[in-house]
């Protein structure tokens, strides 16, 4: 008998790719429904002001134009745009689907044009006569906190969205630590605003069926079930009347986690016109009006002992929420608070968080969502402390790591870490990098006047979101995940997952789980996702939860099915389930043979067939072979890693070359190493992009100067050396797969790792830390000012 290779752990190529790379995937914008109209938005050209008039007379005269809607048409018909991140202390504001008199950010939707096709819609949108009286505007978050600054909302006394003071006990502990410290260090740490730039821009198709009284909405989203609920609420419909489908989704990185005003508005329009309507975002709209990420400024103070022990952290985090609180935007910075201590034994932590409104696009989740900012900060503290104390940064980290036997570990940030082997990952990275050799070579290069730097980042993050106690009631759902497994009479398997993927490769990884569970081939497993009428209610993909929570739900459903299959097999083999063995393909009776000496066995496929033919009823069982399971995690997982990199800076031009990048990551058990590596490479490069070249730039009047890819610099493959990947494996006890999550891990550490190397390269010049992004001109100025 040929043993079937085990799928889990195999480097299986993504099953999705052959169709995607040949252009055969079906994305939202590929949909063509009979009678479908297309839409274009009229958006504000000003960041702040008052609408004097919106006159659509001329636009409506154009051939092929069906309607132009403004806020007046929506009055009393729809609710505000969805927001799930209001905390008790939040100073709430309404974000209308179309501007209602005031405009508060560049590109805010003012009117929607519906026409026969997108070209006519765009022509007509340019014909809508808009007059806005510009008002005072505030773009800089610190300026927004000054007294007498322009206010984004006149109804509020200032520009604060929410201010969360530190807990009194935490504050007391921190003050005690500072009093006992040998020294303190203060830093200002900036994480600039960046744009997620998914390959596929946002898109919506809404189709109201008057006869069925049913709305179907195709959205390029990470969370179809949440979108269904929010659209139903916004339009005042029963959720039974709304079906959301996320077909192929070409990347999201968090920016397709919000349920957007545009999605609700298109739904309303389709219902109003009783016709299908489509809107597909342009790249400039994407850069301007899809949520941005990061945008945090920290003033942090660290208290330490002479031996390098970090005692306590305190300070203030100012986070830009933009002109309105997006779906989860206001909550993202709370992850920063939670993860501030990183992988170190920090005794006490007390931060004030201030979310600020400005006349800019809203921010929301972006790969890492609050955790890269925390990792960036604590790692920068480590580097600066190492420099101040004259301790090697590697050694300083060793002295502060949480020991492997201290888990589960309750941090001063308020998290409970599951497992960690930080030093093992670091050692592996150092070994791979040849750290001591690299330091020696660096000393040699420095003696020649070359600016060579070595950077390090050791980090952990929170993943696998998570216990539903963390979810916000406004999300109308917990943060568990669902899976359904349906075995067809042939033994082929259909899987339905609530963890609707947006490019992660669930169709491959989840099929691997089923393949191993039942002994069927990968190609005999179909993974269905993203359709709320088909898939049991689920939650979605964000926070590196696909495998950790969705995969575990699937594992549970597979186990349920397997238990039933065993009961059927036992019945048919005339034994009891506890006497059955499953060898990966067949059930057999332990130690028993038939009269003619053959083993008594049934393959899984035979059992599947029997379960449906049901000519031999099993007492107490229904026909069929399927199960639904939901996994509610007890806790979140904490993957971690150690990254090292080497850079050289051209003294004359400021040009930066990344010469080496070594990443050792630990995400627990891995189902498909190829997928995991893809996630890590993409994540690392996305973090490096923030450090190197990415930034959203508004001018002082709130105009966006990075509104095309000619000015918004996304990282390119040619900017990087081959990234060297290695891993350690520290499973979590919190789920049966032992998986911790990998989607964001690369991004958490890489931006800081690069900046650590840049600062190390500049160390001989004795300059202050450089801020991201390290553009060539920024470095050139530093070099010039240092007289290099």
């Amino acid at each position, binding site marked *: 008998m040929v043993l079937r290779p085990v799928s889990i752990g195999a480097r299986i190529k993504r099953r999705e790719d052959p169709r995607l790379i040949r252009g055969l995937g079906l994305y939202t914008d590929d949909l063509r429904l009979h009678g479908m109209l297309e839409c*274009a938005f009229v958006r504000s050209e000003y960041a702040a002001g008052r609408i004097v008039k919106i006159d659509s007379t001329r636009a409506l005269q154009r051939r092929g134009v069906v309607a132009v809607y403004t806020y007046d048409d929506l009055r009393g018909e729809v609710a505000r745009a969805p927001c799930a991140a209001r905390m008790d202390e939040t100073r709430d504001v309404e974000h209308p689907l179309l501007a209602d008199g005031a405009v508060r950010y560049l590109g805010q939707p003012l009117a929607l044009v519906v026409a026969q096709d*997108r*070209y006519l819609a*765009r*022509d007509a949108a*340019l014909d809508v006569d808009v007059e806005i009286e510009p008002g005072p505007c505030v773009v800089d978050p610190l300026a927004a906190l000054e007294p007498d600054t322009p206010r984004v909302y006149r109804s509020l006394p200032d520009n604060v969205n929410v201010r969360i003071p530190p807990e009194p006990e935490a504050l007391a502990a921190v003050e005690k630590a500072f009093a006992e410290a040998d020294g303190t260090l203060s830093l200002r740490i900036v994480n600039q605003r960046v744009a997620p730039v998914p390959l596929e821009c946002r898109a919506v198709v809404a189709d109201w069926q008057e006869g069925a009284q049913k709305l179907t909405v195709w959205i390029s989203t990470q969370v179809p079930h949440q979108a269904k609920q929010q659209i139903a609420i916004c339009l005042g419909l029963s959720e039974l009347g709304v079906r959301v489908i996320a077909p192929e989704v070409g990347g999201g990185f968090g920016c397709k986690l919000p349920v957007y005003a545009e999605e609700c508005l298109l739904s309303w329009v389709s219902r109003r016109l009783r016709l299908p309507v489509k809107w597909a975002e*342009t*790249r*400039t*709209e994407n850069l301007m009006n899809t949520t941005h990420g990061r945008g945090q400024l920290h003033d942090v103070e660290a208290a330490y002992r002479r031996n390098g022990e970090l005692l306590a952290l305190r300070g203030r985090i100012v986070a830009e929420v933009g002109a309105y609180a997006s779906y989860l935007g206001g909550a993202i910075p709370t992850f920063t608070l939670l993860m501030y201590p990183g992988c170190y034994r920090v005794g006490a932590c007390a931060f004030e968080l201030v979310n600020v409104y400005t006349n800019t696009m809203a921010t929301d989740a972006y790969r890492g969502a609050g955790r890269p900012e925390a990792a960036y900060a604590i790692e920068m503290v480590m580097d600066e402390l190492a420099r101040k104390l004259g301790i090697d940064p590697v050694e300083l980290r060793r002295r502060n790591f949480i020991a492997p036997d201290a888990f589960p570990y309750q941090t001063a940030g308020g998290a409970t870490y599951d497992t960690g082997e930080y030093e093992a990952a670091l050692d592996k990275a150092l070994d791979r990098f040849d750290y001591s050799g690299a330091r020696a070579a660096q000393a040699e290069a420095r003696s020649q006047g070359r600016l060579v730097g070595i950077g390090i980042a050791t980090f952990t993050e929170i993943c696998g979101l998570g216990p539903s106690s963390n979810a916000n009631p406004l999300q109308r759902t917990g943060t568990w995940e669902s899976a359904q497994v349906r075995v067809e009479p042939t033994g082929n398997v259909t899987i339905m997952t609530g963890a609707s993927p947006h490019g992660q490769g669930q169709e491959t990884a989840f099929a691997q789980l089923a393949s191993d569970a039942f002994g069927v081939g990968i190609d005999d497993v179909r993974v269905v996702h993203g359709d709320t009428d088909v898939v049991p209610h689920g939650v979605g993909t964000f926070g590196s939860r696909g495998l950790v929570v969705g995969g575990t739900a699937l594992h549970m459903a597979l186990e349920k099915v397997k238990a039933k299959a065993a009961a059927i097999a036992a019945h048919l083999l005339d034994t009891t389930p506890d006497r059955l063995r499953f060898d990966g393909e067949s059930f057999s009776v332990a130690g028993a043979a038939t009269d003619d000496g053959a083993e008594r066995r049934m393959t899984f496929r035979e059992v599947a067939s029997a379960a449906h033919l049901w000519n031999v009823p099993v007492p107490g069982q229904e026909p069929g072979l399927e199960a639904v399971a939901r996994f509610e995690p007890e806790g979140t997982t904490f993957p971690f890693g150690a990254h090292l990199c080497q850079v050289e800076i051209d003294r*004359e*031009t400021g*040009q930066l070359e990344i010469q080496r990048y070594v990443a050792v990551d630990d995400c627990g058990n891995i189902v498909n190493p190829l997928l995991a590596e893809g996630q890590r490479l993409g994540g690392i490069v996305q973090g490096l992009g923030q450090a*190197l*070249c990415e930034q959203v*730039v508004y001018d002082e009047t709130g105009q966006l*100067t*990075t509104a*095309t*890819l*000619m*000015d*918004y*610099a*996304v990282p*390119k493959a*040619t*900017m990087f050396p081959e990234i060297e990947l290695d891993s350690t494996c520290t499973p979590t006890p919190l789920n049966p797969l032992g998986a911790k999550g990998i989607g964001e891990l690369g991004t958490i550490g890489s931006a800081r790792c690069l900046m650590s190397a840049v600062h190390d390269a500049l160390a001989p010049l004795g300059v202050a830390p450089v801020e991201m992004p390290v*553009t*060539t*001109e920024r470095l*050139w*100025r530093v070099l010039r000012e240092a007289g290099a």
Partner: protein
Amino acid sequence: MIPAEFDYRRPDTAAEVIALLAAQPDAKLLAGGMSLIPALKHRLLQPGVLVDIARLPGLDQVSERRGRVRIGASVTHGALERSRELAELPLFAETARLIGDVQVRNRGTLGGSLVHADPAADWPAVFLALDGEARCVGPKGKRTIPASDFFVGMLTSALAPDELLLEIELRPQRKRAGAAYCKLRQPASGFALVGVAAEVSLDRRGRCERAAVAITGVNPVPFRAAGVEARLVGGGLDAVTLGRALGEIEELDPMADLHASAEYRCDLARVYARRALLAAAERAVA
């Protein structure tokens, strides 16, 4: 990012192109489309008709005869990167490789880049440094425009709206001559923050006989650094001499944007001019 309505024509001969341009004053020539299509999508341009010349016969050839190289206007950057005919002129492959990305190089054309006259495009520097000539045809017949007269303003070449660029021609390479192109890419667009094409020829004793230094990305119009060139003649091409010659580039009148200030561009111009000259000198010796 959605264009206005336009007509599309694809004539088979240069004569038809000229006739169309004459008949339709709001026509626009489409070659690789790497500049034009984005302009259309953003409605910076709304031509009534696009005249597609990308497949016009005869414009996609590179040939060399008795040292004179001719490159058709619709030869793509990618073709120049790989051209066997230009194996003796590594400057072309070197420049092509630094343009955009693979997709842009496979579509964008030499002619389009020159005629569009983007102040940060790469080929204008090479064309200027090599003293190329542009052959074009219009309603009044053919004419030749020397590189020195080709770039007349920001985004404006000497080509009239009713003319078609056919090819560029380069004189035979001098003895003991070498050329090089050095560039710092703008991180988003890949355009030159500064790009310098240099050509030098040496005398028997290794001294500079002639130097050409053409700079793109800095001024609103690409230019030759005539003062620098004059100071280089007769000297050696070592770092010290170059430093002295490049002390001032008289023509500098720098642009500034998000990616590089005027000050930074000026400094980069000096650094990249030196690097390009050193690389060119090395090739001249080899």
